[in-house]
C-alpha cells in the first residue's frame, strides 16, 4: 500500500474564488477521501430575522446569494404571502417568472465560463462571460441592478415591464440564443472538453437520490426532479419538461445546464406571450401568523425556505436549506476515487456557492 498524503484544497484556491476548505486524502494520484470544512463566511442571516421587519427582510433574503438573488427574494416572499393568505396578482407572478428565468440564464452562462476556466480553456471562459453581459444588460434595464434585482416584495413586484420592452427582450434573447449556441456547441462537441469531462465524477441516479442531491446534479444522473413542476409563480401555465441526462458524469451536468439555458429562453418567450394586463402588487397590511415551507427551483437546485411567524412584525424563525448545501454530500462522494487532476472539474460541476451554503 502506498503512503497516504493530505493535500489541502482552499480556502484560497485558483479554481474557486470562494472560501471552502477540503482535505484531500490521497494515495499516489488518487483521492481516497475528501473532508470538507465550511464556516469561513457565515453571516448569521437567519438570526437577523428577529431584528428586521418582515417586509424589510426581503432585502436581506436577496443578499443570501449574489447569483440567485432574485429567487431568494421570491422564495421568501412566497413563504410570507402563503402565511398571510395574500393573493398575488397574476401579472406579478409572470414578471417573477421572467426575472427568475433571466437569472437562471445568467447563472448557467457564468457557470459554463467557470467550468471552462477550471479545465484551462480561457478563451471559452471569456466567451461565456461576454454572452452573460447581454443578459445582465437586460436585467439592468428592467430592474435597475445587474445582480441584486430588488424587485420582489411581499404582495407582488416593485417594477413593471411594459409590452414593448418585453417584446424587445424576447427579440434580444433570440439573438443572444444564436450566439450562445455557437459557444455551447464547443462544450457539447469539442474533443478536449469531452476528454476532460466524460466519465469523470460519475454518480448513479439511486446514489444521487439517496444523498439528497438537487438541481442539475440530480437531473444529470437521470432523475427527473424539478421544483418548477410543482407550479409556483406562473410555471403552472407554461409548458416545459425537466431536462434530464442519463450518464451522471461531469459532461452530463454540463449538458443539462446548456439545455436549461435554451429552455429558460423558451420559457421567457412563453411567459411574455401569456402575460396578462393588470396590477403588479397588492397592498399588504397586518402581520403574519403561522408557518410555511416554500420551495423554488434555483439555477443550482431546489431551495427550501421555512418561515414561522407569531403575529408580530418580526418573524419568529427563518430557515433556509440552500441547494449548494444539499449537494455537498454528493461532491464529497464524487471526489472519492477521483484523480487529483479531476478535482477542480468535479468541484466546479456541482456549482458550489459558498456564501449560499453558509448564509
Amino acid at each position, binding site marked *: 500500500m502506498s503512503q497516504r498524503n493530505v493535500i489541502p484544497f482552499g480556502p484560497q484556491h485558483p479554481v474557486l474564488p470562494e472560501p471552502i476548505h477540503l482535505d484531500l486524502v490521497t494515495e499516489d494520484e488518487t483521492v481516497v477521501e475528501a473532508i470538507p470544512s465550511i464556516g469561513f463566511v457565515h453571516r448569521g442571516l437567519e438570526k437577523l430575522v428577529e431584528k*428586521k421587519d418582515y417586509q*424589510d427582510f426581503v*432585502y*436581506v433574503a436577496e443578499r443570501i446569494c449574489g447569483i440567485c438573488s432574485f429567487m431568494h427574494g421570491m422564495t421568501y416572499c412566497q413563504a410570507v404571502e402563503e402565511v398571510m393568505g395574500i393573493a398575488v396578482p397574476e401579472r406579478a407572478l409572470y414578471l417573477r417568472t421572467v426575472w427568475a428565468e433571466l437569472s437562471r440564464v445568467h447563472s448557467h452562462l457564468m457557470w459554463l465560463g467557470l467550468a471552462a476556466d477550471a479545465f484551462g480553456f480561457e*478563451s*471559452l471562459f471569456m*466567451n461565456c462571460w*461576454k454572452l452573460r*453581459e447581454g443578459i445582465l*444588460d437586460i436585467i*439592468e*434595464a*428592467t*430592474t*435597475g*441592478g445587474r445582480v*441584486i434585482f*430588488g424587485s420582489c416584495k411581499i404582495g407582488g413586484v*416593485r*417594477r413593471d415591464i411594459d409590452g414593448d420592452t418585453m417584446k424587445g427582450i424576447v427579440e434580444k434573447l433570440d439573438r443572444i440564443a444564436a450566439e450562445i449556441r*455557437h*459557444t455551447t*456547441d*464547443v462544450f457539447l*462537441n*469539442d*474533443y*478536449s472538453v*469531452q476528454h476532460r469531462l466524460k466519465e469523470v465524477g460519475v454518480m448513479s441516479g439511486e446514489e444521487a437520490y439517496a444523498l439528497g442531491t438537487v438541481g442539475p446534479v440530480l437531473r444529470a444522473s437521470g432523475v427527473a426532479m424539478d421544483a418548477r413542476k410543482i407550479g409556483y409563480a406562473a410555471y403552472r401555465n407554461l409548458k416545459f419538461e425537466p431536462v434530464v441526462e442519463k450518464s451522471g458524469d461531469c459532461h452530463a451536468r454540463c449538458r443539462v445546464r446548456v439545455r436549461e439555458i435554451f429552455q429558460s429562453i423558451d420559457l421567457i418567450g412563453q411567459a411574455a406571450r401569456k402575460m396578462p394586463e393588470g396590477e403588479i402588487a397588492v397592498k399588504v397590511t397586518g402581520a403574519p401568523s403561522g408557518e410555511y415551507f416554500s420551495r423554488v427551483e434555483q439555477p443550482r437546485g431546489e431551495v427550501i425556505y421555512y418561515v414561522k411567524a407569531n403575529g408580530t412584525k418580526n418573524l419568529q424563525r427563518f430557515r433556509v436549506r440552500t441547494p449548494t448545501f444539499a449537494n455537498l454530500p454528493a461532491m464529497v462522494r464524487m471526489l472519492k476515487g477521483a484523480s487529483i487532476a479531476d478535482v477542480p472539474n468535479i468541484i466546479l460541476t456541482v456549482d458550489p456557492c459558498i456564501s449560499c451554503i453558509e448564509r
Partner: protein
Amino acid sequence: MGFLSMTRNIAQNLFEGPSTRRYPAVKRYYEPKSRGMIGIDIEACIFCGLCSKRCPTGALTVAKDRKEWEIDRLRCIFCGYCVEVCPKKCLSMANHYSPCVTDRGDAIHLEKQAPKGTTEQPVEEKLEKE
C-alpha cells in the same frame, strides 16, 4: 466530436475587434432605471423621518429640529425603499453613481433646508471628519 470547434469564434474575433468598452474614450451608458444614487429635493422635505426608519442599512439620518437630512453613501445599498415610502416624493434615484471617495467621512452627504421666509439658497456641505 470535433477538434476545431472554436475556429469560427476565433475568426469572428479577428474581425470584430474587442468586446470591451474603450473607457474613458467611450463612457458607460446607464439605463434610465439604473439604481445608482439617492438624491433629495430638500425644500420639499417635511422631515417625517420615514426614509430613515425604513432604510435597511441605517444609511439615512433625519434631524427634524435642525432641518437636516444626511446620507452615508457607503452604507447605502441602492435598494430604493426610501424613494418608495417618501410621502412627499422628494427623494429620487439617480441612474449614475456618486463620486469616488478616499476617506469614509467624505461619503457622508448632508443637506440642510434654508430657513423659511428667507431667499437664501439651500446650503450644501460635506461633513469633514476629524
